[in-house]
């Protein structure tokens, strides 16, 4: 039963993350905002940390990355669907690695400095990893050759652009942890209808949007 609850949690949080990447990310891009840093610094950090706080299960964020990446395959607004999907899947894995030594009750993150620091580290590493993965995967998926030299000369730009994501993450993570003080229990009889319903809604909107684009 506990395992089923976790799977439903992975499904709903992964779907919400994927939904935000596709729908909200595309809207932000349309109005000229730096989509990548906002998606990582705000949405990825929020969903990853919030879900870890509620479920306290290792591997959950990796699963969320797989679900979100799967949903992102249906994003009509990116050049390489597969590359973006792979990037987001790896983001989940990177988060698991960064947080491997952090306890599930966040006992290490009592001070605002620790919370902000973890936000900075997490957002920065997730952002630059996603950027690097797409730089490698895009030429390969396009049937062209991947040139390491092209990536190396562009690394300073990638490291530089991650700075804003890091700063946003440094603020978003402490704000997300404030939710620890809120009682967000869902009654058992409502848990599955809520999680499955929300997940289906996210997939329905994203796939519907894909067909309409």
């Amino acid at each position, binding site marked *: 039963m506990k395992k089923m609850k976790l799977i439903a949690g992975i499904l709903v949080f992964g779907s919400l993350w994927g939904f935000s990447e596709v729908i909200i990310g595309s809207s932000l891009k349309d109005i000229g905002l730096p989509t990548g840093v906002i998606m990582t610094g705000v949405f990825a950090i929020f969903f990853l940390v919030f879900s870890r706080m509620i479920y306290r299960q290792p591997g959950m964020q990796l699963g969320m990355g797989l679900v979100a990446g799967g949903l992102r395959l249906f994003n009509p607004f990116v050049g390489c669907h597969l590359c973006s999907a792979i990037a987001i899947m790896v983001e989940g894995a990177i988060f698991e690695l960064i947080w491997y030594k952090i306890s599930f009750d966040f006992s290490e993150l009592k001070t605002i400095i620790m919370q902000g620091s973890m936000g900075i580290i997490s957002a920065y590493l997730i952002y630059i990893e996603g950027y690097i993965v797409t730089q490698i995967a895009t*030429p390969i998926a396009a049937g062209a050759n991947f040139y390491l030299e092209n990536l190396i000369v562009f690394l300073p*730009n990638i490291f530089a652009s991650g700075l804003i994501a890091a700063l946003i993450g440094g603020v978003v993570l402490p704000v997300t942890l404030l939710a620890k003080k809120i009682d967000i229990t869902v009654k058992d009889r409502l848990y599955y209808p809520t999680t499955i319903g929300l997940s289906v809604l996210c997939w329905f909107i994203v796939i519907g949007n894909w067909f309409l684009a």
Partner: protein
Amino acid sequence: MGKEKIIPILALIVLIIGGTSSAYVYVTQIDKETISINGNEYTVDQLSYMGETKTIQTVEGEKTGVSLEDLIPKLGIGCPSCHEYTIKAKDGYQQTVEWEIMKTGVLSSIKKVYFPDTPKKFWVGDIVEIEVK
């Protein structure tokens, strides 16, 4: 050293890497009006006169510019299919393509290349150089 010391230090290192990289990118950015192709400098207007204009269909609709298939041989580059082409932007971004991709593209008046069948990551903008390898 405990986590309460390591984590803030790592965060500080991250900020230093991001900050110094930003400064490096700003300082090394090349800003010029011309495009260097195979060692020679050309303005976009000059290139427009030299090559035929072509319109291609991309994922973002129609894009019009100088046909690279027509332009490259006219720039004195023999055996275009024997080379690879590294297209470099002013911010350091670059993509290398083979002739099979290169010949399908156009160079627009805003110094950006478009290809009909590649992801947008190959559409290098603010071009400062096309290196022929």
